[in-house]
């Protein structure tokens, strides 16, 4: 095991969650944006309306700044936060999907090249070439979604990969297509709300024409997104559905996500067909915040239902491998660690901490507790799923009570089994008992 990182108040997994949820905004904007923008540019050329092109220019600048600073770096941020929160988890993904990611990277290169060319050459090259640049960008960006969805969906439903270990079996897994279509259509909604924000800043008469075009795209995307989202929901594993229906916080998140969807769709409907004048900068800006809240909830559900795994049925949140995968000569680790102990695997520690002694007992207990719990629980009394509070709720009378609880951890549906041998578990129990004193 790698050294473990403790994040006070938040837990390390939530650091990934926050960055990942933020990333959805600029990344889906980057994928959806130019389909609509190129369409508007085409209309502008056909109708000889230079003010349409002014919108295109302004929109593309926003895209450059928002998606290509914050979007690209938050994308790398997910990777970095996973690196420091769940190194073995991201390593497992990378060692299976490195060529998938490398393929996606080629499309990143195309995206960067074409978006800069598109922005700088507007009005400087013939319209046909310029529109083609935008079109190439749009396809390349969508392909990057086609690729990353395979890896994201794999984490929740690895499907046949669990037997074959094959790249494509894992990539085209049970939730791949529903998730791809859901994201593909909802991205028009995300691009749409940004488009409306930019359109709201226009001063000329084309403002409402452009508003209507954008809102129609976005409205269609939201409706189709919901339909495919429904398909996606029904393809989730049974245990995931049980968690959604069983855990109150996931139900709240579902309601927030649906409410955000509803309000946004209504806004698009009104501005597309009835009252384009409704599009106002402040209103659109507030709706972007609502969109973020909706995405945060939806991604929270997607992450939440995967519990207690990082990769469903394969790797637990504490980064121990849950099952054999003979095709790749991978062996399950939990029972081995319970037999041989965790300390022997912590080669980054000095020798004297890799054996339990009366002097280091509490510190070793803390280290093993961190490995077992810190990904999802904060060790501070306040914060996300705070360990001191949760342990206190058990009202243990002695470390032995906690030890008994730790032994039974794996029987809870959303908790991984404890990793460590009997002596290590006892040390953890003593540490936790001390923690709540």
């Amino acid at each position, binding site marked *: 095991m790698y*050294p*473990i*990182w*403790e994040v006070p108040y938040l837990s390390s997994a939530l650091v990934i969650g926050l960055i990942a949820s933020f990333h959805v905004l600029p990344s889906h904007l980057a994928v959806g944006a130019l389909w609509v923008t190129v369409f508007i540019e085409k209309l502008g050329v056909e109708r000889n309306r230079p003010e349409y092109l002014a919108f295109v220019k302004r929109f593309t600048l926003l895209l450059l700044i928002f998606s*290509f*600073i*914050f979007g*690209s*770096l938050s994308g*790398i*941020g997910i990777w*970095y936060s996973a*690196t*420091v929160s769940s*190194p073995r988890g*991201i390593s497992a993904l*990378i*060692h*299976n999907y*490195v*060529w998938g990611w*490398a*393929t996606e*990277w*080629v*499309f*990143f*290169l195309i995206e*960067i*090249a*074409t978006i*800069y060319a598109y922005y700088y*050459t507007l009005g400087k*090259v*013939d319209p046909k070439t310029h529109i*083609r*640049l935008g079109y190439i960008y749009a*396809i*390349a960006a*969508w*392909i990057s979604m086609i690729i990353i969805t395979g890896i994201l969906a794999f984490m929740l439903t690895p*499907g046949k990969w669990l037997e074959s*270990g*094959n*790249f*494509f079996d894992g990539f*085209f897994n049970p939730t*791949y*297509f529903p998730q791809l279509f859901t994201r593909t259509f909802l991205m028009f909604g995300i691009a749409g709300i940004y488009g409306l924000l930019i359109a709201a800043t226009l001063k000329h008469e084309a403002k409402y024409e452009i508003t209507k075009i954008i809102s129609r795209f976005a409205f269609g995307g939201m409706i189709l997104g919901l339909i495919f989202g429904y398909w996606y929901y029904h393809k989730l594993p049974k245990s995931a559905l049980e968690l959604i229906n069983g855990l109150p916080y996931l139900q709240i998140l579902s309601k927030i996500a649906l409410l955000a969807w509803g309000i946004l769709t209504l806004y698009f409907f009104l501005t597309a067909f009835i009252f384009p004048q409704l599009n106002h900068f402040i209103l659109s800006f507030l709706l972007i915040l609502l969109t973020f809240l909706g995405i945060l909830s939806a991604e929270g559900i997607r992450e939440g239902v995967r519990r207690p795994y990082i990769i469903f049925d394969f790797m637990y949140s504490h980064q121990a491998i849950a099952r054999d995968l003979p095709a*790749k000569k991978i*062996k399950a680790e939990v029972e081995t660690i319970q037999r041989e102990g965790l300390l*022997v695997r912590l*080669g*980054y*520690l*000095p*020798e004297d*901490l890799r054996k339990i002694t009366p002097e280091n007992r509490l*510190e070793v207990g803390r280290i093993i507790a*961190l490995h077992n719990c810190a990904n999802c629980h904060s060790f501070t009394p306040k914060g996300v799923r705070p360990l001191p509070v949760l342990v206190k709720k058990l009202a243990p009378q002695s470390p032995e009570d906690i030890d008994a609880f730790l032994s039974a951890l794996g029987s809870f549906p959303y908790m991984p089994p404890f990793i460590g041998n009997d002596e290590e578990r006892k040390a953890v129990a003593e540490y936790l008992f001390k923690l709540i004193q």
Partner: protein
Amino acid sequence: MNIGTYLNAMRDAAGLPSPAFVFDFFLVLTFALHILLVNLMLGSALLILYGRFSANEHAKRLSQSLSRLLVNSISWAIVLGVAPLLFVQVIYDPFWYTANTLSAWWALGFLGFIILGFVLAYVFYLNGGYEGKGSPLWVLLSLAFLILAGVIMHSLAVTQLYPEKWPSFAVIKGVYQSSGSSLHGFELFRFLHFIVPSLAVVGVWLMFYGNYFKGTGKYSEEYLSYVAKLGAKLALYASLGQAVVGFIWLLTLPTEFSFFTNPFFILAFLSALVLLGVLFKAQGNPSGFAKICAFLLGLTVLLMGAAREALRTNYFTKAGYRLADYPVNPSYGSLILFLATFVIGLIVLLYTALVAYRSGQGIKEVGYEGLGRLSVILLWGWILVMVFIGVIISLKNGTLF
């Protein structure tokens, strides 16, 4: 358990999907491209500052063009950094992940500093940097944050070289340091070896600039000649500086490596010598030497990258980690997917580059129709093939409905 046993035990259980040398090759290649852009980014920031504080009108004029180069090169440096970041995690995962988790906040801070550097470069550009306005303070701050990001990446790389020290970083006075709030290494001359070439790279860029705009009527001949000469001078002096830094760094390396006899080092050294010779010659007529200097610079950076990789292998072998021993579970399909996409990508990028190149020279009807159409067809073809494979596999596995 000694540290070597730990390192080998920490290799990913899935093994590598292709032999290690394939990743190593792409790691060195993409890192060379990345560091060239990093150097271009730092060099252009430095020259913007020089131009804004210089009394020379040409230097001032140049800083305008460079304000755009700065934001563009940051973008490219980031995206080109993704590939080596990916490949290093595949073959050197035990080193990479340990160093990063030990300094977790810094690893995240690295990205935060890049965001700051990037945003500030944009603030300068959008506040009139391209028109010769805007406060150079933004560039100065941007440069500071970007260098800070470089310091972090350097420190993480140095931490990886000394796995035997990890336990002393992880535990201090019997207490495990779970906060990830410390950095654990810095080697001045190694760091300088990554930074000093910035002025050489931007110098060669300027030689190109002089050549590119010649005859377009966009700038005066006098200005273009000034830029090209400045470029050639910078490239020469920075390359000499780099040679000195490299020599001192070589002296600080463990003698047991005998690194001066390493073939990659010797090749890089020879290539640098040739580059220096050509740069000497180029001082009289820089524009005419732009292409050959760019080629030699690229080659030298690539060979230096290969030499640094060889050096890393020395350190890792010393720690008991042998790359060639990494188990392989081949995934031919995914490798073919990447290689085919790489070729498609090069074609599409070529088309985009040709359009941008001509447009920059003021040509409106850029042409290359056939290549443009081919690019679009190839992208749609890619999607069709993937959907076809996806549907077949999903039907075979019974996962589609």
